Structure formats: structure tokens, C-alpha cells
């Protein structure tokens, strides 16, 4: 298994005529944050369900853990589940229990007790910034606070792998930012994270590597930069010229005094134009992103779903 801590191989899962997961294979390296990026219905949540053993694959296999984990194996094994911490997309917390009681309850289910449990509960409350609301019912929390508690519950037993299924769905920008910071803090601590999302900005910001999935298939898997380099296409340069140049061949189309052109080396191209006396009143260079990658790979926008 090498340095990977989880591996899926030729995974297939169908629901009736729909192939939710269709021959997916990938490995999660220890300590990395791997993003599963795809539109709604791409099969991301099904992959999570297969990874945690909630669903059985039609074909293929899932293996959790590595030689450093005594409980490594099939996720349907009770012991293997200790390695996994899951924050499902649906808020999976008891609304008529306080934040502390939720953490305490799930901690006990994972076999924690006594001082160890108390310490972990406190750590999780700190992590979710819910210390001052520790004794309030979760039902009284804002959407962002509930999301944070949902993640904190997944961390109560210090799992080897944290699976976050669309953790920012329905969250206000401030809470979303807080969740990003929390995940970045976990990354710095060396936690292995599988992060599913349909927001390319999140994948770009948080993930070491990104797997692009659509219709249950893995389309590409690499680092963000590699993906963009491979599939993102050229940068887009747009600008308004001070005056229309004469006897200079411009690299793109001109509308009035506005210019727009694609370039793999935008800075060099802009510098060359300036050297020829082209003066820009405004200039914008748009680098390709994962949206472009997805567009290149599928012919559709991520937001088209």
C-alpha cells in the first residue's frame, strides 16, 4: 500500500440503472488533503458511504489503514471504523443535546472515558469555538455552529482519516471561512483528510491533490497546479488600451479600445506589448482554474450540475 492510508480499487456501485460509482480507483496518502471535486450527483457521497462501509460495493474493494494501523482492513470491520472520522453532509448531531453532550456521547461510543474523554471533549469544543455554548442545545445553534459541531464530533476519537462530505453546504461566508481555517489547522497537524465539494475555490484552497469526478468516474487526479497546467488551458488577458496602436499586430480580438486574448505566458506577452509601445489603461490576467479544468474534461461547467 506504500504511504497510502486508504485505497479504493475499481469500485463500482449502482442503484438500479444509475451507476453512482463506476470503476473508481484512488489512494489517499497519509497526511494529505485529497479533494473529491464534482457537481451534485457525481457520486461523491456514495464514495464516502463505500469508504466507511455503509454501502457494499458491487465490485471493487476498499481498504482502510496501513501497516502503521493495527486495525487496518475492510471498513465494515468494527475495529477499522476507529480509524475513520466522518462529518456527513447532513448534520448528524442530536439537537436536543448540548454540544458537550453530543461530543461526550459519541466519544463514549468510540470507547473513550474518564480524563481522556474530558480532554477530547474540551479539545473539540475549542476546535469548533463552541466553549461558551458548550451547554446549549445544538438545536439553538446557527447553521455554521452546527456544521462546526458536526466536524468536531467526527474528530472526538482522533481518527487517522477525516472524511468531510461537503462541510460548507448552507453555511454563511463567515462560518465558511472559519471552517476553512479549522481544516487548514488540521492539515498543519498532519491529519489525513478526504474532502468532497462542488466548490472549486474550496478544493483549490484546501486540497493537496484533487480528484475530479463526474457520473461516478474519476476524470483526473493530481495536484491543483498540475491539473490546471494539464487541463486548464491558457490564461485570459483582458484590458483597455490608452490608444489604438498602429502597425502592431495584436495577439487577440479588439472591440473598440478593449483587447482580449488567451495566452500560456500572459506576463511575457503583456511585457512584449508594452515594449512595443502599447499602453494599458486597465489590465486583467485571469489564470485558468479548476472550473476550466472541469470544463475541459466534461464540456460542462461545475455549476451546471
Amino acid at each position, binding site marked *: 500500500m506504500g504511504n497510502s492510508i486508504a485505497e479504493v480499487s475499481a469500485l463500482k456501485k449502482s442503484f438500479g440503472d444509475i451507476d453512482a460509482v463506476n470503476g473508481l480507483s484512488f489512494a489517499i496518502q497519509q497526511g494529505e488533503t485529497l479533494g473529491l471535486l464534482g457537481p451534485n450527483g457525481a457520486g461523491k457521497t456514495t464514495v464516502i458511504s463505500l469508504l466507511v*462501509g*455503509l454501502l457494499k460495493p458491487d465490485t471493487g474493494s476498499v481498504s482502510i489503514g496501513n501497516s502503521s494501523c493495527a486495525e487496518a482492513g475492510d471498513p465494515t470491520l*468494527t475495529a477499522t*471504523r476507529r480509524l475513520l472520522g466522518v462529518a*456527513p453532509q*447532513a448534520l*448528524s448531531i442530536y439537537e436536543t*443535546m448540548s454540544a458537550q453532550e453530543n461530543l461526550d*456521547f459519541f466519544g463514549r*461510543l468510540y470507547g473513550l472515558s474518564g480524563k481522556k474523554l474530558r480532554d477530547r471533549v474540551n479539545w473539540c469544543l475549542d476546535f469548533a469555538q463552541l466553549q461558551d455554548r458548550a451547554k446549549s442545545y445544538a438545536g439553538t445553534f446557527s447553521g455554521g455552529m452546527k456544521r462546526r459541531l458536526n466536524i468536531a464530533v467526527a474528530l472526538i476519537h482522533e481518527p487517522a482519516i477525516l472524511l468531510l462530505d461537503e462541510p460548507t453546504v448552507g453555511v454563511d461566508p463567515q462560518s465558511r471561512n472559519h471552517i476553512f481555517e479549522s481544516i487548514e489547522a488540521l492539515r498543519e497537524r498532519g491529519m489525513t483528510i478526504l474532502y468532497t465539494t462542488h466548490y472549486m475555490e474550496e478544493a483549490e484552497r484546501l486540497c493537496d491533490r484533487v480528484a475530479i469526478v463526474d457520473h461516478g468516474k474519476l476524470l483526473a487526479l493530481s495536484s491543483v497546479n498540475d491539473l490546471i497546467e494539464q487541463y486548464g488551458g491558457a490564461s485570459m488577458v483582458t484590458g483597455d488600451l490608452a490608444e489604438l496602436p498602429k502597425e502592431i499586430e495584436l495577439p487577440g480580438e479588439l472591440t473598440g479600445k478593449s483587447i482580449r486574448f488567451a495566452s500560456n505566458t500572459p506576463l511575457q506577452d503583456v511585457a512584449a506589448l508594452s515594449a512595443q509601445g502599447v499602453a494599458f489603461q486597465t489590465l486583467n490576467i485571469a489564470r485558468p482554474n479548476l472550473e476550466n479544468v472541469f470544463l475541459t474534461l466534461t464540456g460542462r461547467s461545475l455549476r451546471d450540475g
Partner: protein
Amino acid sequence: MNQVLVMAIKDLRLLFRDKLGAFFIIGFPILMGIFFGMVMGGPSSGSDRAKMKIAIVDLDQSTLSAKFISQLADNGSIELIETDLEPAKESVRKGQRLAMLVLTEGFGETAGIFWEKPPTIQIGVDPSRSAESAMLQGMILESIGQLAGQRMGDLSSMQDMVKKSREQLANDKSISSGNRLLINSFFSSLEGMTQSIEALQTDADDSSSSPVENGGFEFAKLESIDVSRKIDPASQAGQMKKIKSKWDISFPQSTMWGVLACAAGFAISIARERTQGTMMRLQIAPISQSSVLIGKAVACFFSVMLVISFMVGLGLLLGMRPGSYPMLALAALCVASCFVGIMMVMSNLGKTEESVNGAGWAINMVMAMFGGAMIPVMFMPQFMKSLSILSPVKWGILAMEGAIWREFSLSEMMLPCGILLGIGIAGIAIGTSLLNRE
């Protein structure tokens, strides 16, 4: 095991934090119990107790018997209704009257004459109100005493009575000469006394009289009569006779409402866990699927036991006296097991809380209706009685009644308890299988 308990404690905590759910489990059964208790037993205090309703049968039809009835009626604590023998018995049997009194023939001849054989008054009392009958006996003696006082005040009647008694004494050969002399001497003194009183009354023109003390004399012989029909102990009426308190019926009945609410509450909680996603967390936790379900079952079992204990405690405070506590414990265990199974099946009746709630309570209502939680089975028409055997509620009530007032032996308890356990085991097996399949 520890994790099963953690699950069970969590579920009990959640159950009792749902205020409406807690009301249906504890508050509603109490209201039902008290309501049905009042309906079945009638009020037991206030004006009803202030005036004792007595049926009186005057077989003597003499002036003295009429006087006695009038004096008794003057007592503010008694409401008298004169009637015939059979209607009087029927009214006591039906509980319309506390007691019936029969003034036998010859009552007027000897009533209030302490040296004669005392008159017989027959009393038939509603067995459930024996405490009040003691008070009634006191009032009867008081009225007879007043009659004796009036006899003494009526001097001409007394003189006639003495004269008549002298003649009877002369004719009675069984009395020894010593006693005859003694009694004659008494009669002479009595005649002298009545003449002296007559003279005094003439002088003073005073017609008032005082009641004669009844200490040391027997003014009336009170004879109990059985007002009940000969009842087959196995019949419904025979069974009803075993009921010691109105709460004996209403509490098992109302307890079942709490039990039904527990089953529905836990079934809904399983559906809620599914829709909220917490079931997923439980399923991926390092505990077996059966531990998750056993945790739910244990919590449901404890909450049912808690409801039964609470209702029994309240029943005891109100006067319910279970015939056998071990049998009651057995009944409670079987009821709890049965409804854990029903809860497991119920939780699979729908995918959402709403559908499980709707379907669960629909089934609960039917089970309650045919099982006797609304109207006791014994009061149902025959076709409903036949259908009631299909309702676990009927067997639950029967098991508890068997322990509380039906005086069931262990072997008699086996039928309802066996059925309850059977339903419980089948329900747990079916429910677990459905949940696991899901």
C-alpha cells in the same frame, strides 16, 4: 455492553427532553386513569357521602314502624326511600343505595320495650361501602332508643302493654315461680311508676319526654341479609366482585396508554435518527449494528418499566391494592418486552418521522380501541370481545389485572404473559431484520 448502555441512556434522555412526548408517556396516562376511575367508580366524596341513600321496606306497617321511619328520616345524614323488598335489594345490588333496611312483621309490637324480645331489623349493605354501614347501624340504634323513650312517654300504651304482659306471664307455664314473682314485682313497680308520672304530668301539664338510654338493653336485633345474587365466580359479574377499588380497572387501562406512547416515541426516534443522519453516525461507529438496536430496545424497555412503576405508584396512593406484587412485576416485564418488539416493527412503517408517527399512532389507536384501553373489554359487545384477542393491549391489561385484582395464579398468568412475550420476540426479530436490511 457499556456502549449499549450509553445508547440507552442517550435515548432515554432524548425521550424525556421531548416535552410533548413525555406528556404522552406520563401525563396522558394519569389523566386517562383518573378520568376512567371517576367514570367507573363515581365520586367518593362530597354530597354523595354526606347523605346516605337507604332503601327501607316496612313489612310491619304499624304506627311504631312508621314512627321509626320518620325518626330515621329526620336524621340529616340519611335519605330514605320506602320501597318493596325486591326493588330494595336490586337498588343496593346496583349501587344505587348504600343499604336496605327491612322492618319485619311484629316490629311495632316490641320496638322500644326493653324487657320484650327485641324487634328484628334486617340490613343489606353494599359490600364496597362497609365503613358507612357502621355509621348507619349507629343511627338505627339511636332511632330505636328514641322510640323507647316515646313508649315510656305514652303512659296509656305502656299500661296496656304491662297489662298484656301480665296476662302472658300468667299463661306461660314454663316460667319458674321464682322468676314469675320477680317479673310480677317488676310490673307492679312499673305500673306504680306510670301512675306517678301520670299524676305529675297532670300537675305540671308538661308533656315533654326524654329519650331512654339504651345502655345495657338490646333495643333491636340487627340481622344481615345478603343483597347479592348467587354469582358464578368465573362469570363477568363474579370477576367484577373481585375489584376492590375503582382504580383497579382504570390504572391498567391507562398504563397501557403510557406504554403505547413509549413504543410510538421510540419508533419515531429511530425514524428521526434516520432522517437526521445520526443513525449513519451510529452505524459507522465501532459498535455492531445489533448493539445500536439493542440500545434502542433497552431504552424502550426501561421507559415502559418506568411508566408502569410510576402508574402503579400513583395507583397505590389513590387506593389501588395489587393482589400480587411478584405477578405484577412479571406482567410488567412481559408488557415491556412485547412493546419493545412492537416498537421495532413500528419504526419500519415509514421512512420519515411523520410517516412513522402517523402509522404508529393509527395502529396504537386500533390496538387500544379493541384491546380495552378505551372501554374495558368486559363492557364490550361480543364481536369486539372476539376481536380483542388480536390486540396486544388486551393481553397487557389482562396480565396486569391478573396481578392486581383478578387473583390469577402463576399458571393463569402464563396465557397473557406467553402471548405478550411471543409478540415481543416476533416483533424484535422482524423489526431487527427490517432495520438491518435497510
